[in-house]
């Protein structure tokens, strides 16, 4: 096995309860999660706690993970698709310290994945749980900042306004100009923000065998997409939803089906494109060093 698949060990700190949160708080959050699973795409308000990480840095995802994680779980944490970006490392270390669970960088080995801004390229399987960190859970917020209004719009399924926005994009640019956090309709009922994943990842939300949980700590909302649920990206019949494509394959593994990050390699405009999902990329490369 490739040694980099095992992140550095961190000792379990016995001063903290398993998963940091106290058991009553976990139960409260689990109740919110159950409600969220029962009403796919509906934002359930919950008593979000102040976590030892700043708001906007994944406190919602952390609280969801802390409430569902068990000693047998194998945890993977990614940010921008990578296991080794600083915020992913910081969150993974937090759970190693407060739970002592096994961690991995391999998507297939993980039972629980916490993510910011990506869905792994490796298809998820039944039994896996993926937890998204959500900065702004309300897909209508940029169009209507008043929560009292957006709540009514969800309640009555009045989503014409969202299509007005798409219409405006097409009228102005000839295509929809939203590239990430692209709004979706869940199970034909609730409009949902998929969190700032690139729209490239939107098709993976649809009929996914894994349980998908979304936590927004600052905004104090939890929502969910249960396994095998329909998730449709908004579009017009004559302007169908499309995902990003690259004109070149990953410079490291040659993948043509993954989301690529652009890396600037010198100050003369030189750049290369590599997989944003580091695990996917590494698994596709011949084992070398």
């Amino acid at each position, binding site marked *: 096995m490739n040694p980099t698949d095992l992140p550095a060990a961190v000792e379990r700190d016995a001063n903290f309860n398993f998963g940091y949160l106290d058991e009553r708080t976990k139960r409260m959050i689990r109740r919110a999660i159950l409600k969220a699973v029962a009403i796919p795409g509906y934002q359930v308000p919950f008593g979000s706690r102040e976590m030892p990480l700043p708001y906007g840095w994944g406190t919602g995802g952390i609280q969801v993970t802390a409430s569902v994680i068990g000693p047998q779980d194998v945890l993977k944490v990614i940010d921008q698709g990578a296991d080794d970006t600083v915020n992913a490392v910081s969150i993974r270390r937090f759970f190693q310290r407060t739970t002592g669970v096994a961690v991995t960088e391999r998507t297939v080995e993980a039972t629980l994945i916490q993510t910011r801004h990506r869905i792994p390229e490796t298809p998820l399987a039944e039994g896996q749980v993926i937890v998204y960190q959500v900065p702004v859970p309300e897909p209508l917020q940029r169009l209507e900042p008043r929560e009292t209004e957006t709540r009514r719009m969800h*309640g*009555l*399924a*009045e*989503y*014409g*306004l969202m*299509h*007005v*926005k798409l*219409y*405006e994009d*097409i*009228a*102005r640019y000839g295509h929809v100009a939203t590239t990430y956090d692209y709004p979706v309709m869940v199970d034909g009922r609730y409009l949902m923000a998929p969190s700032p994943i690139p729209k490239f990842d939107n098709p993976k939300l649809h009929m996914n065998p894994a349980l998908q949980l979304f936590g927004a700590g600052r905004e104090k909302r939890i929502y969910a997409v249960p396994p095998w649920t329909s998730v449709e990206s908004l*579009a*017009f*019949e*004559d*302007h169908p939803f499309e995902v990003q494509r690259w004109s070149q394959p990953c410079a490291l593994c040659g993948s043509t089906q993954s989301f690529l990050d652009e890396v600037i390699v010198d100050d003369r405009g030189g750049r290369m494109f590599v997989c944003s999902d580091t695990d996917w990329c590494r698994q596709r490369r011949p084992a070398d060093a």
Partner: protein
Amino acid sequence: MHENDRPILRVRGVVKRYGARAAVDGVSFELWPGEVLAVVGESGSGKSTLLNAVSARARPDAGEVEFLTRHDGPVDVYALSEAARRLLARTDWGFVHQNAAEGLRMNVSAGANVGERLMALGERHYGRIRAEAGDWLRRVEMDVARIDDSPQTFSGGMRQRLQIARNLVTRPRLVFMDEPTSGLDVSVQARLLDLLRSLTRQLSLAAIIVTHDLAVARLLAHRMMVMKGGRVVETGLTDQVLDDPQHPYTQLLVSSVLQP
């Protein structure tokens, strides 16, 4: 029974109070398909409050508002669920505000303003929405080339035309209008009134127009209702009321306006 044999709107004993004062005090009337009714009176007479009460925008303290739906016969609009009421309000009804900015989305294009109701009803074909929006801009005599412009850049008269197009795109059968022409220049007013008259005729629209301007009533309405202190003091065919007012208050209104 043919649907034209029944009133499209039946209002019975509507009361709306603000504190101890009744702004509308027991008003009843019927409106027939394709009929235009003007509600006139001075400011404070209760005419705008009445309009809000019968258009399901403010629940009255007493009374009933019954609308003849396309498929389910007469329904009490306040007995409907909020969802059903809002659906009715954006499909079979229209509401034209005095201030167009209240009835428009000022930060999206004219085309999107007209297309919004279609999208809210589930239309998902951009080309059709745009074609329909363009068609309606033509029908309210606007330059179709302005379809992508923001209403911020429109004159008062154009904004009002756009607001009318936005309301009519779902082919409503009943439109409520609150002083639709006041605040506009006289020449702009006259052209807008012409447009409203031809549209209500072409589309057989039933309409309730609240106005303080008897000339507007004369030009548009088949029938009129004169309000004072929250009550209806006189009602009848427009020409009849204007040419031969019976109630002293109507006589006063008519003489103060129509004197040479």
